[in-house]
Structure formats: C-alpha cells, structure tokens
C-alpha cells in the first residue's frame, strides 16, 4: 500500500471534498494503483535536470497600464446561485449549530 485510507481522507480535506466510507475505500484502492504507476518515474535519473512547467517562449508579458471599463455589475451577478440586495448570499461563516 503506497497510500492509506487516512492519507486519502487528509488529501480530500485539503481538496475540500468528502467521501462516504464505501467510496473512500474504493478511492484509496484506485489512488494506490495510480500512485504505484506514477512511481516508476523514480527509476529516471534527473540529477541536474531543470523542470519544465510551461512550453511557451513568452516571458513576463507586459501591457500598457490603461484604465478600461469593467464588466457591468448586474451581468457579473447573472450566474450567482443565491443573491440578496445586490450581494452574494452565503450561509453564516460560524456554524449556527455550535454554541457561541
């Protein structure tokens, strides 16, 4: 086992995901297989090999600092799931079920 169910649970919390126990078991098995597959990279000697994170030849593209009109506020709100008085509505940040 390259990865345990507890580690998978931890990664899920970092990724803001949750799984049922049955799903967690299935995912752990699949993650384990995938991690085993990618571990074959350890056989490649990469001493002093630089990383490649982009394949574009562009570097620090600059533009003129000119003010342009922003997107209309109403338009920006178009796809908001819940709104009130021109604001985005979200649940309380503090858990209401907790004593406080």
């Amino acid at each position, binding site marked *: 086992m390259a990865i345990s169910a507890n580690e998978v649970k931890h990664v899920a919390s970092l990724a803001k*995901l949750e799984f049922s126990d049955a799903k967690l078991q299935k995912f752990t098995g699949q993650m384990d297989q995938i991690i085993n597959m990618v571990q*074959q*990279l350890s056989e*490649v000697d990469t001493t002093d090999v630089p990383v490649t994170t982009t394949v574009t030849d*562009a570097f620090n593209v600059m533009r003129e600092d000119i003010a342009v009109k922003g997107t209309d506020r109403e338009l920006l709100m178009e796809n908001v799931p819940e709104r009130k008085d021109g604001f985005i509505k979200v649940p309380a940040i503090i858990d209401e079920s907790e004593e406080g």
Partner: protein
Amino acid sequence: MDYFTTDLTSLHEKLVNKDLSVEELTKETFKTIKDRDQQIAAFLALNEEAALKQAKELDQNGIDPANVLAGIPIAIKDNIVTKGLRTTAASKMLENFDPIYDATVMEKLAAAQMINVGKVNMDEFAMGGSTESSAFKVTKNAWDQTKVPGGSSGGSAAAVASGQVLAALGSDTGGSIRQPAAYNGIVGVKPTYGRVSRYGLIAFASSLDQIGPLTRTVKDNAYVLNAISGHDSRDFTSSDREVPDFTQGLDGDIKGMKIAVPKEYFGEGVAKDVKEAIKKAIKTFESLGATVDEVSLPHSKYGVPVYYIIASSEASSNLQRFDGIRYGFRAQDVKNLEDVYVRSRSEGFGDEVKRRIMLGTFSLSAGTYDAFFKKAAQVRTLICQDFAQVFSDYDLILGPTAPTTAYGIGDEINDPITMYMNDILTIPVNLAGLPGMSLPAGFSNGLPIGMQLIAPQFREDTMYKAGYAFEQATDFHKQVPTIGGQN
C-alpha cells in the same frame, strides 16, 4: 443536408452560386441533427434561434466569395464558453451556467461568419478518453453505436463523423482531439501550444490545453485552424508569431520530406491491426517520395505518469474556483460556509474529476511535492529533449494515434489505469507543446484506425502538407458510416 459527399470548398461554391441559401443550409443541418443525433447523442444544446437569425443576415448581405467559411455550420465542444448559450463542460457543477462572454475562438468564428449550431458532449471537464464521464449523456461512436466515440472531445468527433456537421471545435490536453478523431475516422488537429487563444476555454491543465478543429478532410481542417489562430492579449501564452495560411502548400508533393517513426510507438500495448495499418501508411509515404527512418524517443514510456501528475496538479488548482459561491452548483441544506465548499464540490463533481483533483492535491502537497510534481516536471524536460533531438534531423514524426480501435461502451470506465494507458501515444505531444494531427489510415472490423503526425512547434504547415498528400493517395476519408440505415 448530406455532409458525407461534400466538403467546405464545394459547399462554399453552392452558397456563392446561390444554389443553396445559408438559411436553407442551416435549416437542413438542424433537421439532420434532430434525426441522426437520436442515435449518436452528440449534442447537449442547440443554438437554433440565433443560428437561423445569423443565417438570414448572411443571406441578406451576401456571401463573400473569398471567405470559404462564411455561412458554414460548426459544432462547439461544451467547455468553450458561448455568450448566452448554456455551457456545462458536461458537469453537474455547471448544469445551469450561461456564460456572459464569448471565448476568443467564438469571436474569431463569428468574424469568419461561421454559424455555431450547438454545444457538443465531452468527458466531464475534459477528463477522460471515452466521453462516458459526461454528467448528461453517453455519446456513441459513429461507426458502431456499441462503441465509445473516444474523448474527451467525443461529441465533436461523433457529430462530424456522423455527417451532422462538417466541422467542430474540440480541445486537447492529452489527446482529446486526436484520439476521438482516430476512433471516428476523421481529421483532428491539436495545434502548437500558444497557436490558439485559450481565453474562454474552461481550464483543465493550463500548460497543456489547446483548442483545435475536427473535420472530415485535411484541407477543411486547415481552413478552420486559419480562422481560430493568432495572438490574443487576453491569453499571454498565445503566440504573437505570424499565422501562415495552412491551406497553402497542399499540393501532394512531399518528395524529400524526412519522416521519423519512433520504435516506442509500436510497443507491446499497440494492437496488431493498428500496427499493420500504420506500417502500410509508411509504405504510402515512401511511395510518395518521403524518406522514413526508425528513431527512438527513449522517455516516451514515462509520458503517462508524467502527464497524470502534471495535468492533475494543474487541474486541482484550476478547479478550486468551483466553490458554490459566485456561479455553478451550490449544495442545499448546508450549515456553514465550509459546508458550502465541501458539499457543493462533492455533489457537483463526478468521480473521474474527483480522482484527478485528489491525485493533483496529493502530488502538490507537502512531503510529496519533490517526489511527484517536481520529478514529473523534470522528466517532462527529458521528453521535450527527445523530440528536439529527433526534429534536428527530421521534418515530421509518424505513428499510431491510439493503441487500439474504439472499445465498447462501459468496458473501461471502472479501470482508471487501463484508461490512462490509452493516452500513451498522444500525451508526449502535449507535454512538449507540439502540434499533432490524427487522420484516417485504415479500418479493422469496420472500425477506423488513426495515424498521428507530429511536427515541430509552429510547423502545422508541414503536418497539413503531409496529411493532405497521404489523404489524396488513399481513400479512407471517403468511407462513411451507416447511420439510420443510410449513408
């Protein structure tokens, strides 16, 4: 409208000569879609009203004889945002999302007067190779409706191959244009990274993603790439290099062209029928006057693990934006803000997307970053160097597009590793930012086989020239599937 016996040039001629109006063409196209798509299930949304309005305007203003694309219907992959037209990336997360702006490629298609007839199915957020991870429907292969159309641009490929449209846009992160093109017997091109603006493409892996055309013929493909290429200030990775006319130089003359065939592309995972078809294709190229040599790309076997680490890492970062707050799916009955994030993401994303977010988060997390992400990014450098070495002596690399022909619907969806290995021949091209084309090169048991051509960065012209010469020397592209008892 019978798109099986026509191409862009012949259709354009009919429109110019007024043998056919744009409105008639558009109406006929929707009629064909409504008929054939009952079997194929490629479309997620039709753009009928806007398309007919645009068609009438074009008829009133007249077709520009110099613009081959004017009035021609095109289908758009559903991860390309279209203003006011539902764009879901085939995810429950974006089930009700109506974009407030157009992707740059949509502005360019509009400027070229092409008509967007609708949005086509794909794997959820372009993650997959069979279009089965779509949250909405299972698209069928045009040649055999028990087979997958490939993916992630499966809807784009199936719509073109089943004669519903002449052209479609797809996107390719690890083979998502080329593999479905191969499975459906059509031409699919992933341009050089930076050739086409990614502005308005719902991001999967930003250092790999590229938009490109799927068509029935090489020349049609070149016309569409002409229209969508070019620098865009809204995507700073888009290149400001001059865009040549890709239809120039399609003359069938490839005498003296130097073609390299990597021996790794004929490994044990590649099926016998596929190997045989590609070997025959090599003979065709030789008979056309090209020289073909065997070469080695020694690090290509590491392409799959490198890709799954890099693409998943970038995806885990890109998909953080889906938090249920400003747009997209929001879970109901939540207690607090944290709950909105976790429940919206857990209920809104499908399993394949979650697997990749998890692998990416794991690869980037403290304690694993060096052994996973950094290691993969270093091996990526070696893969790029392999290609550079070969291209110092050769014009083009040739091989199969996919290890097999299309597999059965439901066959692989439960086995991620087998599914990931299908991408072994297309992935290295994305990692190195090269242009790649898949074009029809044979059949096995009634299913198409795709050949892949790979060129140096920004040398799509070489790829089109060779592809066109091969197409003219063969008749694979003239064969059509049987749809609804007709062909």
